[in-house]
């Protein structure tokens, strides 16, 4: 009864699920290319990639926590903290570059450790634990800077001006070029690739996914679920810190609250990524792809003079479409019979 028709429908859903996101991307690029000469240029594409590099790093961190069936809402605040800390280390304390890079990363590790302590040891649900941490860290970073952003030779509240400046080498991380691409783009691509390889092609990635899929079965297969979750949150903290450092280097100052608006965007990128190549679950390439779809769409619409205050409608629309495809498919794939 209607078997043929339903299989055509199934195939269509299958196709949509696997290639829908990519087809959409190609369509968007094609569409904007036909209506604007400025869109399909090398310069514009590197601009787009650079503009999504920071969000993508944040989103990779969120991806790791989602893989273990957790969630990290504190990445935005962690990024803000890392932004002001890296700037302050140079501007206030005139520290050498390696410390300026290392200390924020250690802070990221620390945030991840506290998150996983709250979630794994105390047992607070991930969403709530990281929500609390989001507030605490946001407050910490504002308290640390007394509410001011940090810039070269800024006046200090204790009198006088700050002794240091953001060094050239540091700024190169955010503003430099290498082999025809901006340095942030290289950093992003390397991190996406590394995350992809780790998650999809190593046993650690497998352990992360299985822990997220069924923690009890993972435990009885010899996995220390607590350690795995700990690792995922630490990775998330490190990615958020990297995003913060990159932001400082890109903007040339330590803006407060830099990460707050990027947090939900990162989360959206990860969920859009579910629908890429039929993954149906958090994955590194999908996350990059999700960030790219949103980035390209916004770029094209900016060229079309869409007002910035309408951007969130587009972001939300893309997210809904991607989730709809993902969940409709998941229902088909995993329903018994």
């Amino acid at each position, binding site marked *: 009864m209607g078997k043929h028709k339903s299989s055509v429908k199934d195939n269509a859903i299958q196709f949509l699920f696997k290639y829908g996101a990519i087809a959409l991307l190609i369509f968007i690029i094609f569409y904007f290319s036909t209506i604007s000469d400025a869109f399909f240029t090398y310069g514009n594409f590197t601009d787009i990639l650079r503009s999504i590099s920071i969000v993508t790093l944040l989103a990779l961190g969120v991806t790791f926590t989602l893989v273990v069936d957790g969630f990290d809402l504190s990445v935005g605040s962690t990024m803000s903290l890392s932004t002001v800390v890296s700037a302050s280390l140079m501007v206030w304390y005139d520290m050498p570059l390696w410390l300026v890079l290392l200390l924020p990363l250690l802070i990221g590790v620390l945030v991840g450790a506290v998150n996983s302590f709250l979630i794994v040891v105390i047992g607070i649900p991930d969403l709530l634990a990281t929500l609390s941490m989001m507030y605490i860290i946001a407050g910490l970073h504002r308290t640390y800077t007394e509410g001011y952003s940090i810039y070269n030779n800024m006046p200090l509240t204790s009198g006088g001006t700050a002794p240091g400046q953001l060094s050239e080498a540091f700024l190169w991380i955010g503003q430099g070029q290498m082999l025809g691409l901006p340095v942030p783009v290289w950093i992003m691509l390397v991190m996406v690739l590394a995350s992809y390889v780790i998650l999809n092609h190593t046993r650690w990635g497998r352990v992360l996914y299985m822990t997220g899929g069924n923690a009890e079965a993972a435990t*009885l297969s010899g996995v220390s679920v607590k350690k795995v979750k700990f690792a995922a949150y630490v990775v998330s903290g490190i990615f958020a810190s990297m995003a913060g450092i990159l932001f400082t280097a890109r903007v040339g100052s330590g803006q407060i609250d830099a990460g707050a608006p990027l947090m939900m965007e990162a989360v959206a990128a990860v969920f859009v990524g579910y629908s890429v190549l039929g993954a149906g679950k958090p994955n590194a390439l999908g996350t990059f792809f999700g960030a790219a779809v949103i980035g390209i769409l916004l770029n094209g619409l900016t060229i079309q003079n869409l007002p910035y205050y309408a951007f969130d409608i587009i972001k939300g629309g893309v997210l809904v479409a991607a989730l709809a495809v993902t969940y409709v498919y998941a229902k088909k794939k995993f329903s018994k019979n």
Partner: protein
Amino acid sequence: MAQALLSMTAIGKTFGAVTALQKAEFHLEKGEVHAILGVNGAGKSTLIKILSGVYQQDEGTIKLDGVDIRLESPKAAKEQGIYCVYQEVDTAIVAELTVAENILLDTFAGKGNLFVSRQKINERARLALRELQADNINVQQKAARLTLAEKQMVLIARALVHSAKIIIFDEPTAPLSIHESEKLYAVIAKLKAQGVGCVFISHRLPEVFEISDRITVMREGTLVKTYDTSEADQDGVIEAMLGAALSHELEPRAHEIGNPLLEVENLSDGQKLKDLSLTVAAGEVVGVVGLVGAGKTELAKALFGGTPLTSGMMKLSGKTAKIKHPADAIKAGMALIPEERRKEGLFVQESLETNASFPNLKKFSKNLLLDRKAEKRFADEIIERLRIKTDSTETPLVHLSGGNQQKVAIGKWISLDSALYLFDEPTKGVDIGAKVDIFKLIRQLAESGKGCLYFSSEIHEAIGISDRILVMYNGQIVKELSRQEATQERILLYASGGKEELGETQKLGERQRDSVSV
């Protein structure tokens, strides 16, 4: 014979390319208990789901009281008076509501009653439970606090208050103790006396023969035969289910039993388990038998490092083993096939490959990367060795039947070449064909010098597979029986807390005689 209460005629149902039912028949009289038997995949579940409105048939007719009906949804089925008591009762119970609210759920969830009189609801619920002789259940407590058996009563009461014509019992006794099961039989008898048609599905033949009036056997999606229970015999029914006769013979044991592999002394967990000592030798299958709630699963988990111990000593191959986490147990050469395989043993949404390689990923890694080809080769190997039925190694396990899932749960340990295997109720929800394969595999493991602990409440099966049997009661090992000494009667006696001197052997033995569980 008068007009049947329910007639399902020439029912056909396909899922994609798979034919689940073909010209299936089922007829039910008023006031009858009618059992449906069949191995997994025979089409019982599909037929039941069509009757309860979950699926719609592609072909065939359903008549209730001689009138054609169409069951478009579970709601439509309920409106016709067809209720189902699911095996997994929790899916039908709202834990946060009270017992009374659960019983009358459909009444006040469905209609446009804006206000609900709590008193009225409690009163009606109390009446319904009294009718089931279950008035010990407080209707005002939250359903979350009920035992499994009590939740079943709530579901039955729910059917009663809606004056159900047909109640479907889908493996209701699987999670129940003997005592609870007997209570349920009494309730079914009562429903029957009230003229309710009861459909009864079970893997346990003795109870089917005890309580049913007729038995319908299904195989490969169609009706094989409907028997009057009084004229049927177990062997004949099993033969009809399998399409072949079942051999009752225990195979003789040929191989040698070796040195002690596992030695446990005075193990306690501070809760259920009290002062247990046991040994397993290489090449030996030791059955640990007890009723539901005796502490078998707790023991298996404790040995495997899944729960902390308060005291006790464990030696593996003569060396003291400190096992604090399953990872330690696996390193020490143990493997656990847990009771709740979907929850604890498998990643059901993942492929067979992914599941099979998981406990030993190092073996499937080249340098740092996973070797997908090696994973696939191993998956193919266990598919062949354990005779797993699947489309491909990439099929998500949700699409496999219970028996095949169980085989994967066992097969995933093979690559580790563990020395000691703990099987916790490995035949639960597994059809008889797969059971035979699993028994063969366990014997093979033993013959190749592995040690096996076989935890089970299916006494008959444990006797068949074990070299030695430990009987558990209330968290303790109360008796050890050799293969020659072990009989169903003696095991059941000790497992229910009895002692031989009390002379209860006779009475308990009578009831369980010839119990074959399928």
